[in-house]
């Protein structure tokens, strides 16, 4: 159980920000599932971000803040 706010989620943020720059397809005008491929990619990134935050909340929650709350 973490005693301090963890820093490794910042690594997850960095990965998400790198994935955000999908420059290799910025000029592609393909439509996938009826949507521009860049839009679909960023929608997928929102889903990935949700999953990533679920993992962070589970694995790196700052429990010391909760404990102080219950004191």
């Amino acid at each position, binding site marked *: 159980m973490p005693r301090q706010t963890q820093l490794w989620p910042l690594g997850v943020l960095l990965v998400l920000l790198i994935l955000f*720059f999908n420059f290799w397809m910025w000029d592609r005008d393909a439509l996938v599932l009826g949507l521009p491929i860049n839009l679909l990619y960023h929608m997928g990134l929102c889903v990935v971000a949700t999953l990533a*935050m679920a993992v962070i909340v589970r694995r790196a929650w700052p429990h010391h803040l*909760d404990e102080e709350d219950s004191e």
Partner: protein
Amino acid sequence: MIMVVVAIYLGLVLIVGAMGHRLFRATGEDYFVASRSIGPVVLLMTLLGTNLTAFTMLGASGEAYRQGVVVFGLMGASSAIVIPFLFYYLGTKSWWLGKRFSYLTQIQLIRDRYTSPALGTLLFVVVVLLMLPYILIGVKGGGDALVAITRGDWPSWAGSLLVCGVTFLYVTYGGMRSTAWANTFQTTVFILVGLVAYLVIMDHYGGIGKAMTTLRDAHPEFVVFGSDSYATLKMLSYQMLPMSVAAFPHIYGHWLSARTARSFQTPIVFYPICIAAVWVPSVTLGMVGRIDFTAPVNGPILIELILAHTGGVLAGCLAAGVFAAIMSSLDSQTLALGAMFTEDIVRFYGFDDQLSEKQQVLFGRVFVAAFLALAFVASLFTTRSIFELGTWSLTGFAGLVPVFVGALYWKRSTKQGAAAAILSVIGLWIFFFADSLTADGAYSVGGTGLIPAGVIVPVSALLLVLVSLATNPPRDTDRFFARR
């Protein structure tokens, strides 16, 4: 029919707001932060509703109409990635300190942490000045929307007055709890209205696939991001804008209203997917507006689409949705300003920290009423577009974020470092804003694509670090970092 739907909606908002008042305890803590009692689901919805403004519903679709799909990447996806981390790192810690030291505003945190009343007052002035244009986004958006939806049958001032009047009633009556409950209702309404508008209008074009194919054939530049250096710098620097959320006084107020630290878990996890649910309909509708409407259109493109392709009931629902988006931000903004003027000025300077609970509530209500009145009057004379106003306000707030990060996580940060960071934000903001007044079209630093926030935020952070290291370390900061 449109105004009937709007009237029914506004009545429902007032009922929900009045329900929040049933638990009202007539204390400053209850009026400004709901006695720190807000649970996870309401916290998610009220944070979402507070962050999403008239800009999201009308401005984003308008920008997508002008720029294409890249708007989702610039503002939607970047928010979905950055903001949950702000909740995780800054929200939970702010809540913990707020509960521990009974803070009701972010200025109290900064004054206490840096042991500098003057620094707190400097930040107060900057935050208030940045908030005013942000509040104007909502008030003016309400007026513009009503004019467009009723085709000029109702004047702009009537829309602004409706927005201000209804917000005034439930915020002054019930404070933060009524605000949070009304926000939850309003956020639900504008998400649903956005989705219904999306389905109805896309059906008119034969589905999203057909609409996008038609758009790509006519305007291929609208379905790509563009990959030149201008686009790259623009994408890079737009990452800075969502950071502004961490410096908003109204978001700080909602953070403090959480029941427990764990109440943040739901907003942290579900925020990205909620952002996509709101932004995708708004952006795609703006894009398909290009198929039928050649630039420039008279009103917001979303409203033009609704009026062109659907009946009066849906137009009324859209008006209700726009009002929902506006009021769910305006209420929190004016309440936060009321808290700041009451706690950070009247209580701190005028009453030597001795202000009764009833007096705090009274001052809070008076200030909320005064700001709404001021915003209404100012909206009558405002001409700049909603998007421009919003971006400049966000730029300033983003520049203040290093000050809060330092206060919460860097023991070595000093009041001199924080002051240098704030002063740099003031100087650079004024410089860039003045420079933008002579620019043609969308402004960027030196025409490179880099938005001003891409300069202001790094400079602010750098000065905080350098000046802090060059000055004496602060004393008595352990209580902000260590456990009891």
